[in-house]
């Protein structure tokens, strides 16, 4: 029962709603693949060791660090980046709108990661109060220290999300 080890690995995945397949060097991280091979530069390469959260993307709906994930580990999975948040017509996702409305950034470098983490934080049900948001958003660092505005934006987006779900019932 020997396994075939390869230096050129095939991977098929769904990226922002589109099916893709690629042949990659196995050491390629999801982050490097998105930025260098696909040209999606929203996810940022901040620390490249899992400390800063600027590379946060969703894999099968769960937030993960793109720098700590090999693209070969995403075989058969669905990856969503910040570029996949807005609607096709360009209408912003409600979390993006809340960040703009609340001035939840200064330089904007961490914002793509903050947005992806916020989308997941709300879906997980942890966007309930300031303390919970701060705990469950702690994997995303903002060196400009826009934390109060980010916290307010996440809570506002969560309220709007809940209202929309209620209205759709």
């Amino acid at each position, binding site marked *: 029962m*020997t396994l075939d080890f390869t230096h050129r690995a095939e991977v098929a995945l769904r990226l922002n709603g589109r099916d893709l397949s690629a042949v990659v060097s196995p050491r390629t991280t999801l982050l490097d693949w998105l930025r260098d091979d696909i040209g999606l530069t929203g996810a940022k390469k901040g620390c490249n060791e899992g400390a800063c959260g600027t590379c946060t993307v969703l894999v099968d709906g769960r937030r993960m660090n793109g720098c*700590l994930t090999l693209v070969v580990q995403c075989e058969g999975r669905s990856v969503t980046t910040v570029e996949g948040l807005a609607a096709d017509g360009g209408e912003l996702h409600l979390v993006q709108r809340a960040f703009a409305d609340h001035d939840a950034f200064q330089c904007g470098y961490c914002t793509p990661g903050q947005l992806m983490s916020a989308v997941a934080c709300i879906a997980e049900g942890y966007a309930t109060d300031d303390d919970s948001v701060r705990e469950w958003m702690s*994997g995303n660092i903002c060196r400009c220290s826009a934390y109060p505005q980010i916290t307010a934006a996440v809570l506002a987006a969560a309220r709007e999300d809940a209202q929309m779900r209620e209205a759709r019932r």
Partner: protein
Amino acid sequence: MRDFAYARAGTPESAVGTLADPGTSVIAGGTELLNWFRLGIAAADRVVDIGGLDELRGIAMDGDDLRVGALATLNEIGEHPLVTRTAGALASACLQAASAQIRNRATIGGNVLQRTRCPYFRAEEPLPWPCNKRDPGSGCTSLAGRHERQAIFGWTRDCVAVQPSDPAVALAVLDARADVLGPAGPRTIPMREFHLTQREAAEAGQPMRETRLEPGELITGYRLPASADGQAYVKVRERASYEYAIVSAAASVRLDEARAAGARGQGAAGARGQGAAGAREQRIAAARVALGSVAQRPWRLTAAEAELPGTPLTREALIPVIERAMADAAPLPQNGFKVTMARNAAVRALLTAGGAS
């Protein structure tokens, strides 16, 4: 990161079959391995991916045991109702580890194999200073340098590092066993014996060995005896979230039912959330307690566990018991504060587990 060859394992056996070659590494979540590769802590010619093995997934009761698959992520464990109900200290330890996005990748199989956060060890190659873990025989820079975060038990002059895993402390206090698959077949390793202090490793003639896992063995899961005892995991750190512990403590407490019934008219399971007034009447029937980030292994306070039955569940009564059990602490010049901090964490974990705080 150096190039490597990659294969997806189809079965646990096929993965183990590749590990006879010491140049092969296993990847599950990858949150540690990829950083080891980047820093030069590990290098592999081949990486075998076990992430697709469904038989290593899942959290379920198996008779009286809670069975947690090696590929269960820290968030899956922390949020699972079976774990919060029967192994609350483990759930709490998992959710206090790392960040939300790392917890979605990091697996419980790999978590206990993470290596020390000692900054001298974690430097990028070429290493600018001696470190016996990175370059055996070169020396320990931390011993003569900064070591305020290092061990107070079990260290040697060759290495003073601590094991930083939060879940490992809970697994040790809950008497979990690791299911392991190796070339000779399956076996189990009690988690309270899984890690080795530097002194234990030296006595065994392998001073840099860190666990009882043999080369070529793979953790496939854990079994924990389900427990209705109150449990807690207390993590003391420099900021409230997303930080390694300075010290931590896990505890499980069963209260004396007869006394508890007299004091509160409820069983032990109802003890959580009771006020301090009722707690004055309560005595411990049985308790387990372990410290984290004080040694290269979770540090069970067995002497305290022998003494705790009959002890009132109060800070005043618990402090001397814990202090006696920690009498053999051997702090380094810069980390004497960890002895006091660990004592207080153990007391707080016991009080919380018993429902008194």
